[in-house]
């Protein structure tokens, strides 16, 4: 067994083990970072497959993605730092069924599929050829996707920004009351702060 084979088996084992830990751990933050470990191991396998750029790109994309995911999950939970134990799975029976079917289907495709044999030509530079593909024949698709994503990001920032172009973004909105029909939970009476604007009466 060569060093490449050993590296592959170690990383495959890490990817599977960390992927399994995602579902049995009891914290959102741990689950996100186990998923990150799983992806990093897959990234190393991609490096072994000579996808030098895509493997390394997976490292930083997944690092940022899992960081943001952990942060947002903790922010939207009633669990301040995400350290209180909580169950990480829902609808277990359906999920197990779907997981088994997906695993069997992918394994069957891997084992019984007919794959073309196209050895990589000698002296192929994967990074250069990827660059030519992305900014050559596929440039229109690539650039359209890029500009669309950028426009989405700018639009989301504009929509969620507290300070809008025409005043406060949440102008006129009212958080729910502590009891039905009661005063908003987090907002002091506006007459005390500014005077003049009466959106509600006591």
């Amino acid at each position, binding site marked *: 067994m060569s060093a490449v084979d050993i590296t592959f088996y170690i990383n495959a084992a890490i990817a599977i083990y960390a992927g399994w830990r995602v579902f049995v751990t009891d914290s959102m933050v741990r689950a996100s*970072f186990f998923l*990150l470990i799983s992806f990093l191991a897959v990234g190393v396998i991609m490096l072994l497959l000579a996808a030098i750029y895509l493997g390394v790109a997976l490292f*930083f994309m997944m690092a*940022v993605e899992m960081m943001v995911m952990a942060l947002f999950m903790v922010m939207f939970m009633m669990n301040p730092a995400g350290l209180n134990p909580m169950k990480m799975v829902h609808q277990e029976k359906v999920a197990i069924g779907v997981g088994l079917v997906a695993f069997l289907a992918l394994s069957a495709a891997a084992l019984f599929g007919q794959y073309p044999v196209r050895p990589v030509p000698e002296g192929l530079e994967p990074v250069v050829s990827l660059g030519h593909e992305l900014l050559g024949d596929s440039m229109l698709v690539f650039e359209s996707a890029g500009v669309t994503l950028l426009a989405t990001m700018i639009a989301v920032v504009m929509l969620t920004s507290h300070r809008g172009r025409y005043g406060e973004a949440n102008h006129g909105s009212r958080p729910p009351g502590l009891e039905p029909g009661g005063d908003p939970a987090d907002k002091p009476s506006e007459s005390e702060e500014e005077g003049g604007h009466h959106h509600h009466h006591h």
Partner: protein
Amino acid sequence: MSLALLIVSVCSVLLALAVGVYCVAAFDHAVEARVSGARGGSALMAPLQQAALLWYAPENRTETSDIPAWRVAPVLYLMFAAMGLALVPWHSRFVPVDLSTGVVLWGAIEPLATVVIFLKGWAPNAPFPILGAYRYVSLGLSYILVSMFVLIGVALPAESLQFKAVVESQAELWNVIRQPLGLPLFLIVGLGVSFWGPLNFIDADDLNGGGAAEDSGRIRLLWAVGRAAMLVAFSAIGATAFLGGWQGPWLPGPVWLGLKTLALLLVLVVLGQYLPRPGPERFLTIAWVVLLPLSFLNLAWAGVEALL
């Protein structure tokens, strides 16, 4: 790669790491003594004395903390610094990790460091560390973006993502002159990612020690070593990307690289003592409104220069 080359590579990276970390601590002590006029022992012995103090200090525990994460985070941070250092070419024929996408891997180390810094602050299950951790995540994105655009600017004239090619592209003119905005921006990012000096918003005094508020003993020592190592990695990558790496007259390549790295290290330590400290919110505004547009300008400049 033969076994001998592998061993030499590992040893050279570890040696550079050890010498670099020691130099950071000694420089910092010397600069601080010079600024404050304090006579606090010799700068050469101080790093070892401080390390011994932390080594023998007892460890701290908090309620329902994630102890494995707390312990593994400083190790991983140190490991990422070592990975960055391994990408640096010592000579045209000796690069510990000669990856054809080395610049991108360095770009991946910064987000991975963000994850580890967050994990370190999250693990103790205590208020000040988690505040420091959140603070770094919100600042980290601006560091990553600035660093990425600066490094793309360096890769453009080299027409390659390999650090060796980046060094070779500076044979006639160093990038520090070709792209004058690049090195200052990269050094600011370096101070930010190793949260050093004025940009230490994470383990900051305004958070009662922040991310390191609950650290004691060897974890604190390891964390300090990791931050110094990250500063060393930034200096070495900066010397490679902007100061011509191993290139220079008379002396052999690795000596030139070492001298340039130490010079940048000294600049970073001095900046850490002399730059004013902005508040974290203000620095976030500065990062997005000043530093990021400057990095765009740098990239546009590099693009125009590459076309001409």
